[in-house]
Structure formats: C-alpha cells, structure tokens
C-alpha cells in the first residue's frame, strides 16, 4: 500500500496535537467531573462524525441512519451492563428475580434467548463491532450492488432508523421501550457511577477516539481513500477503470457503522443509560449536522463540530430552550448555503494562510512541501 511520506502533514499534525492537548490535558484539568462527563457524552458523537467523514465526506454516501448503528452498539453494551445490574441479589423484590426490571414489569418470566449471550463481556465487545457491521453489510450490499445511491440511499437508511425506533419502543418487554435501559451499575463488578470511574471512562473513551482517528487517517492516506474520493467525484470513471465501486462503498459504509457503534457503546458506559431517543430519525440527522458543521472533509473538523454543536445545544437549551431549534435550523441552513466545508473550511480559508505566512516568514524559505490539498474544498 502506498502511504504518502508522512502519516500527518504539518497542518494535520497541528490539529492532532491541538485536539490531544485539549482532550487529554486541558479539559480534564479545568472541568469538574459533571462537565467532563458531558464532554464524554459529546465525544460519543465524535465517533459517529468520524465515520461520516469517511462515508459521506470521502465516499459521498450520505447515510441518515447512523443512529441505528449508534443505537445497536449502545444497546449491546447496555444489555451486558443491565444483565450485570439485574443479578438475583439485586432483583430480589421482583416476581422473577434475575431478569432486568422492565421485563418483570411486562410479565416476562424468563430471559429471552437473544439476551443470553450478553452475560459474556467478550461476546458483548464482539457484538458491538459485528452486529452493526453485519447490519451495515446487509443494507450496503443490497443497495450498492444494485447501484442505488445518493438520495435513495439516504431515504432508505432513514426508513431503517424509523423502523428500528418503532420496534424498540413497541417491544417494551424485550428492550425497555421508550424509557430505554436505565440504572446501569457495574462493569465486571467495577462501579461505573462514582466520579473517579467517570474520569477513567473518559480517558478510555478519548484513547478509543484517537485509535479511531488513526484508523480513519490510515484509510484516508491509502489507495482506498483515493478511490473513495475518485468515486465521489466520477463514479462511472472509477467503474470503467475496473474497480468494483459497490465493494468500496460497502466498506466505507460498514466502517462508518462500526465507528458509530463504538460511539454508542461508550455512550452507554459514560452516560449510564441507552434509549430509543438516540436511535431515530432526528438524532441521526443531528449526527449529520455535527459532521456538516465541523467539515465533512476533515477528520479533526468533524470532531470539533460534534463537540461544539453539542456544547452549544446544552448551553442554549439550558438558558433559551425556545431559541435552540431556531438556532440549530439556522445553523444548518447557513452551513449548507454559505460554508459547505464547515468550520474546517473556514479554518483552511482564513486562519491557515495566516499561520502559514507566519511560519514562512520565520523560515524565510517559502515553498515547503505541502500535501494538504486533500483537506481543501471538494470540487462541486
């Protein structure tokens, strides 16, 4: 595989260092545990945004069903945690001890078969990756092999999100219904609720996020990433060159699904519950917003987008609940109309040149080797 000279070019390296400094050092030092936990919640969406950069920004496949994969990952994790929290001692007062409380409320007397394997942590971790991955593989194969793409794909993924939400809400006895799975307590006997556990979980999440950034950056730099971009711009030419366009699309979609699922699983761990309100159409589209605001072509931009939009959402909806929807809607329209490349586009257009000039004048030797073209505007 051909990898360009360095893993990160200079501006990406700066982005990497800045993000690492903020997430590893500055935020844990300055925020109290409650706020840090909120940041952890925002970062779970950063996983989804990262996947969308690959799938939408690079591959040109707009999926409006990322909430499905976020939810599948989250529910897999939550099922494991819920089973651990529903041990026989903890659920003595139920008519059937040893099953999750919502099953008991819905007159279910034994653990359903598909819940059984979630007693094992190893199986759960595998399921978090494989269940959404396989689901994406099925959808992707069915759609892309028949050359369905673009808007049709977006609408069908959206329908899938709707179906899954209705199903989860309707099957209250098996899924916890609209309330979701609440009251998650321990992970292998280790309490996830106290403050020090939240800090540990935050760092685990950030490390996972950087691992995913590494994977995404690796994909971007290999030939695979180039083919994705080529496909987005001129699908037919790539096909005529002998590449199987469908397979590359399926890969990008599955990758995005797996990233979203990891985000969902860390959500269940950090926030301590999982509910259908993170699965449906609205959250799925919001996930696309984060990516669009941050910049669909920039890995770091999308992560900043997820953090900043969620931060704005929390602070605005705390103080001006009525303005929030107006603000979100206006932001969406503004991003689409005025800056299609989002924050990272603004950065590349206005801030980056100044920094470059600063460096260039210091070095007094302009014309350094620049390979940051990939971050630029996608040709419309």
């Amino acid at each position, binding site marked *: 595989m051909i990898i360009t000279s360095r893993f990160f070019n200079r501006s990406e390296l700066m982005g990497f260092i800045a993000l690492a400094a903020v997430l590893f050092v500055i935020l844990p030092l300055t925020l109290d545990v409650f706020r840090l936990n909120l940041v952890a919640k925002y970062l779970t969406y950063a996983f989804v945004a990262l996947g969308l950069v690959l799938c939408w920004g690079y591959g040109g496949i707009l999926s409006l069903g990322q909430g499905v994969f976020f939810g599948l990952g989250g529910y897999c994790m939550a099922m494991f945690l819920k089973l651990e929290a529903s041990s026989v001692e903890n659920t003595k007062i139920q008519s059937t001890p040893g099953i999750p409380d919502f099953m008991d409320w819905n007159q279910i007397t034994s653990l359903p078969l598909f819940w059984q394997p979630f007693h094992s942590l190893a199986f759960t971790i595998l399921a978090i990756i494989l269940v959404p991955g396989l689901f994406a593989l099925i959808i992707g194969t069915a759609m892309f092999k028949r050359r369905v793409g673009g808007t049709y794909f977006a609408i069908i993924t959206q329908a899938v999100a709707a*179906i899954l939400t209705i199903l989860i809400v309707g099957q209250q006895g098996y899924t916890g219904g609209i309330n979701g799975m609440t009251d998650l307590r321990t992970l292998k006997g280790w309490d996830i609720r106290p403050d020090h556990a939240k800090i540990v979980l935050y760092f685990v999440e950030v490390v996972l996020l950087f691992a995913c950034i590494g994977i995404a950056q690796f994909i971007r730099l290999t030939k695979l990433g180039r083919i994705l971009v080529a496909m987005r711009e001129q699908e037919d030419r790539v096909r005529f060159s002998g590449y199987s366009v469908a397979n590359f699309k399926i890969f990008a979609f599955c990758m995005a699904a797996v990233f979203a699922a990891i985000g969902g699983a860390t959500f269940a761990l950090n926030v301590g519950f999982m509910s259908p309100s993170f699965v449906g159409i*609205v959250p799925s589209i919001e996930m696309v917003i984060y990516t669009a605001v941050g910049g669909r072509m920039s890995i770091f931009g999308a992560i900043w987008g997820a953090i900043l939009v969620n931060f704005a959402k929390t602070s605005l909806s705390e103080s001006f609940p009525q303005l929030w*929807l107006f603000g979100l809607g206006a*932001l*969406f329209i503004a991003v*689409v109309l005025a800056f299609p490349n989002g924050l990272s586009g603004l950065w590349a257009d206005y801030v980056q040149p100044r920094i470059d000039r600063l460096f260039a004048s210091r070095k007094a030797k302009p014309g350094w080797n620049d390979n940051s073209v990939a971050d630029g505007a996608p040709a419309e």
Partner: protein
Amino acid sequence: MFGDYSLGDLGSIFVMQGFAGLILFSVYVLMALGLAIIFGQMGVINMAHGEFMILGAYVTWMTSNLFQAYLPSLFSGYFFLAMILAFVASGALGMLVEWALIRHLYKRPLDTLLATWGLSLMLQQAYRSVFGAREVGVELPQWMLGSLHVTDSIEVPINGVFVMCLTVLITISVAYVLYMSRWGRQVRAVVQNRIMAGAVGINTEKVDRYTFGLGCGIAGIAGSAFTMIGSTGPTSGQLYIVDTFLVVVFGGAASLLGTIASAFSISQTQSTLEFFMSGSMAKVLTLLAVVGILMLRPQGLFALKVRK
C-alpha cells in the same frame, strides 16, 4: 392471527379497515403527490414537507374556529374554504422558501435535504411559539360525522368517502396540469434540461418557483385532510415525512400512477394489519415490507429508470 375469525368476519374486517384506511390513504396520496412533483420532477428533497402539511392543518383549525365564532350558520361548509386557504398558505410559503433557499441548491440535491431539514426545525419552533406546544383538534361539521351502513357488519365513514373523492379530484387535476397544459410541458422541459429550456424562452426560475409552490400547496390540502385522523401539533408532520418519502420512492419517483398505487398499498396494509396487532407492530411490518421490496426492486413499482 386470522384463525380466530370466520371467513365472513374476515371479509367485513378487510372492507371496514379498508375504508378506515381511506383517510390515511388520502393523506399519503396528497403528501406524496406534492413530494413526487418536488422530488420526482425537480430533484429537490424537501424534508420540510411535513411542516407544510401541518401549516395546512393549522389553517384548517383556525378557519374552523373563525367559523364557530363568527359564522356558525355556515359552519357546515367551512371545510371547503379551509382547504382553499390551506392550499394558498402552504403554496405561498413554498414559493417564498424556493426563492430564499432552494434555488441556490439545485445542483446539490443532497444538500437540499440538509437545508430543508433545518427549515423544518425552524418551522416547528415557529408553530410551537405561535400555536403553543399542545396539540389541537378540529371539530367536524355534522354531516361529515357518522357513517353509511352498507350491510349489517360493514359501515363506511362519510368523511373518509368525502376525502377520498376530493383526493381523486385533486389527483386528476394535477395529472391534467402536468401532462396536458402548456405550463406542465414547461415544467417537464425544465426538469429534463434546464439550460435548453431556458434557451428556448421558458422562464425557468418562474417555472421552478410555481412548481415548488404547487407541491407545497397540495401538502397544505393534505394537512386539511389530516385534521380528520389526528390532532395537530408542531411535530406531527415529522411523523409522516419518512412514510411519504417511502411512498414516493416505492412508487417510482417520477410516476404519478406509481405514487397512487404505492400510497394505496402501504396505507391499506397498515390499516388492515392494525386490526390484528398493535399499531406500532403494524407500522414496523409495513415499513419492513416496503424497505425489503425496495432492496429487491430499487426502481420502485412503476418507474422507468432511476439508475445513477
């Protein structure tokens, strides 16, 4: 699930649920007609379509309140005026939106989806600020209530039949306008080749604006019909947008006949299943069937081609 009923019962159930599904069918058809014009003809994905429908529903609600307060003698006829007002209001808003937003995005169809989603959020909040977060219900005039007794076990609701007739009428007029009139020819010419259409002297901007307005106006009428099956709230429209898109895609985007056929099959399947199981499971099964069929036959029921 069918085992508990006799054959005669089953027949009656299917007929009754079929007629009960008529209003849902009409809402689907009217919503989908508007979308089929906007999405199928113009290629714009209008995620705010549900909000245009709800605008029509709110207009109907306001008209009914006005008639109750000031013209109680004419209350039985308010529905006709309400529909016209709903059409005008939604259509005007649609033309405004086209001018302000959509016309900048004709070359980027996926982005219209995002921008109109933003628009739908703003409209929802606007409804919430103006009309309040509580859902409102419309009072129907006397003659629309009640039902016709066809046989002992079959009853047909009058408002369903009324809305059904209305839907047929609107569908025929839309088909006439699109396929027979001079303006419809212009619309189709602009859709096929915008630059050439402009070159032969068609005012493409004007055609676009009126097309979008027509689609949104029909959604407004759908909103009037919607007031009969559900109460109107700021987010009611969102519940229908996915179903409607599925109806359009399932029927084959550019085909009016396909849209009607798919609206009929989807609404009737859902309405019939609802008798035998919970509403949510009926919806899940219906949507799953649609998505499954679309995976096997992505071009939809009637389309000539959708490959891109």
